[in-house]
């Protein structure tokens, strides 16, 4: 177990952890990464098309747990799952709207 992050100072905004399951070639995935970058939100991503073998199979199973259709991008923001580049939903989940 890791120690939880220290509580933010009063008035400081925090965003939930963000993870993107993406494809390196996909325009909606690129748009999603760009949006998060513009919102100065830190995120993790994995380009599933660039994986091979067991790693690829394991990640695909992970994606299917969040999004059974396994389409991209699948964006995880805290406990919310957003499928596709949906700017408004992404910003809402981040608490930016």
């Amino acid at each position, binding site marked *: 177990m890791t120690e939880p992050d220290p509580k933010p100072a009063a008035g400081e905004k925090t965003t939930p952890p963000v993870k993107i399951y993406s*494809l390196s*070639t*996909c*325009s*909606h995935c690129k748009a999603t990464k760009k949006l998060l970058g513009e919102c100065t939100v830190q995120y993790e991503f994995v380009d599933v098309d660039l994986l091979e073998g067991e790693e690829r199979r394991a990640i695909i199973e992970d994606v299917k747990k969040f999004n059974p259709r*396994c*389409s991209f991008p699948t964006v995880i923001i805290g406990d919310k799952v957003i499928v596709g*580049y949906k700017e408004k939903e992404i910003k809402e989940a981040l608490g930016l709207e």
Partner: protein
Amino acid sequence: MNAEELYETMRKVQEPKGYYFNRDRERVFELLEALLLNKKRYGYPGCPCRLLCGDREKDRDIICPCVYSVADIAEYGSCYCNLYVSREWNEGKIPRVYVPERRPPEKMTF
């Protein structure tokens, strides 16, 4: 073939059918480059916005332009990737909504 040549080749085939490239040229050339990359990687120009399995026969339905683009352009004015669109979509006469995945899950064999 480079992206410019692909653009011209596809434009001549698709425009008479009423399918146009998105006016956002940056987006279009990003997608055309991705199609050329997929052709190099897998041997066929599979959809850049979908996970390809590497088997041409199994991915036949998502070789660009995919079989779902006809229904998607009819319903939403755009294909899944926003590569091919209708004239009305380009002119902003219909709302630009996110095009949901139409490919049936059982086709996804990756």
